[in-house]
């Protein structure tokens, strides 16, 4: 079954200002449309409620990647392919390259956008764990102006976001790691391409004097939204690489997850495999 065409209306604003004006006139009645790789699936299945789409894909203001000394700022419309092709992303954020490469297959990577991956708010999305690990920030724009939110504060529950009905995600800002860094990303799906994660773990650590000086771990598919593993992080922070408290960290990780049974995996599987991913990550960290 397909969506019934005449029920769907599309506006193609010529500028970001025009898009925001439209949204402000009738907050909540427009559905932003970027690459469509999430929305079109629901639409094709006939499960999308009639709506007015707001096509963002031609808004130059939401494109492009800007680099300065301390960060990379990705436009909302940055595609997975653009992430894969960007030299600075390879240099500073190898986990993001792996996230992009692990997303769908090439045709999805050519169309799907970073902001769409975030705003779709699937707990199984593959860039959010990496963005959490790198301490990303989001820039949201509305007629009231620009607002910045730490990404680890953005998800407030299953499909609940700190984003008002008249706001758009404009940029994703990722600070460049400083010093000696350790990066880890692994997604577990049924096959390498075109598979939604059963679990996913991304981590970034800064190593100083042989100790874990800074650590962020992002998890996918084990909670109602992408989450930081704050308990596991706390168990590891400050510890020497030579004697990482692996068992305590694995135990602490249990308090960071609230996995469920679904069509892709059981809660038990997710809990065991995610702790194993942490174990693998720590073995690599110990040798870093």
């Amino acid at each position, binding site marked *: 079954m397909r969506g019934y065409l005449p029920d769907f209306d599309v506006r193609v604003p010529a500028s970001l200002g025009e898009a925001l004006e439209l949204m402000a006139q009738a907050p909540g009645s427009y559905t932003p449309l970027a690459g469509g790789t999430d929305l079109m699936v629901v639409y*094709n*299945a006939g499960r999308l409620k009639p709506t007015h*789409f707001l096509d963002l894909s031609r808004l130059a203001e939401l494109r492009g990647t800007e680099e300065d000394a301390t960060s990379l700022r990705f436009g909302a419309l940055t595609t997975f392919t653009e992430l894969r092709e960007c030299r600075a992303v390879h240099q500073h954020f190898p986990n993001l390259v792996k996230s992009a490469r692990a997303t769908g297959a090439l*045709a999805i990577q050519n*169309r799907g956008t970073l902001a769409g991956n975030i705003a779709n708010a699937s707990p199984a999305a593959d860039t959010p764990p990496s963005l959490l690990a790198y301490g990303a920030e989001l820039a949201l724009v509305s007629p009231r102006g620009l607002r910045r939110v730490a990404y680890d504060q953005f998800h407030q529950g299953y499909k609940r976001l700190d984003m008002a009905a008249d706001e758009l995600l404009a940029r994703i800002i990722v600070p460049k790691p400083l010093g000696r860094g350790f990066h880890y990303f692994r997604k577990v799906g049924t096959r*390498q391409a075109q598979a939604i994660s059963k679990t996913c773990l991304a981590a970034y650590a800064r190593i100083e004097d042989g100790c874990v000086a800074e650590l962020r771990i992002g998890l996918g598919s084990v909670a109602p939204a992408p989450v930081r593993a704050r308990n596991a992080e706390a168990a590891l922070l400050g510890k020497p690489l030579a004697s990482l408290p692996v068992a305590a960290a694995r135990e602490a990780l249990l308090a960071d997850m609230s996995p469920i049974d679904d069509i892709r995996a059981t809660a038990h599987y997710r809990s065991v495999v995610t702790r194993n991913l942490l174990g693998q990550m720590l073995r690599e960290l110990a040798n870093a």
Partner: protein
Amino acid sequence: MAECIDLNLKVNGTEYRASVHPFARLLDVLREDLRLTGTKEGCGEGECGACTVLLNGRVVNSCLVPAVQAQGAEVVTVEGLAEGENLSSLQAAFLTHNGAQCGFCTPGMLLSATDLINRCPNPSDDEIRDGLAGNLCRCTGYAKILDAVHSAAEREAAR
């Protein structure tokens, strides 16, 4: 209720104009409005790749592209690969190596493989698998498709 739009797009080098619903899928516009039925619909949800076309030079699933986003775009479908009677190297290699059985995946497979060889003239097995990962084939078991892509890439390189 939405009005139809005048959609202008260039498909396989020819300018087309059609009056379509802005949220019609590019796939339906190609098949039903332009009568280019080489592009197939398998899943309608981005999983199978039967609907793969090149949109402004990049492979996309045409079942996930609303017409309004193809306004002014350049599209290549399987009908655009041969030059008159002359098959492209890839099409010829698919024939020689039995890269097609039922043929339903073949148009999409050919577009993804064409794009792959453009980006990566001498692909390894892994690069071919990565490039074709979004194109499912229920018949061939993929080995013969890999053979065909390798042989077409070699043929192109020798030209």
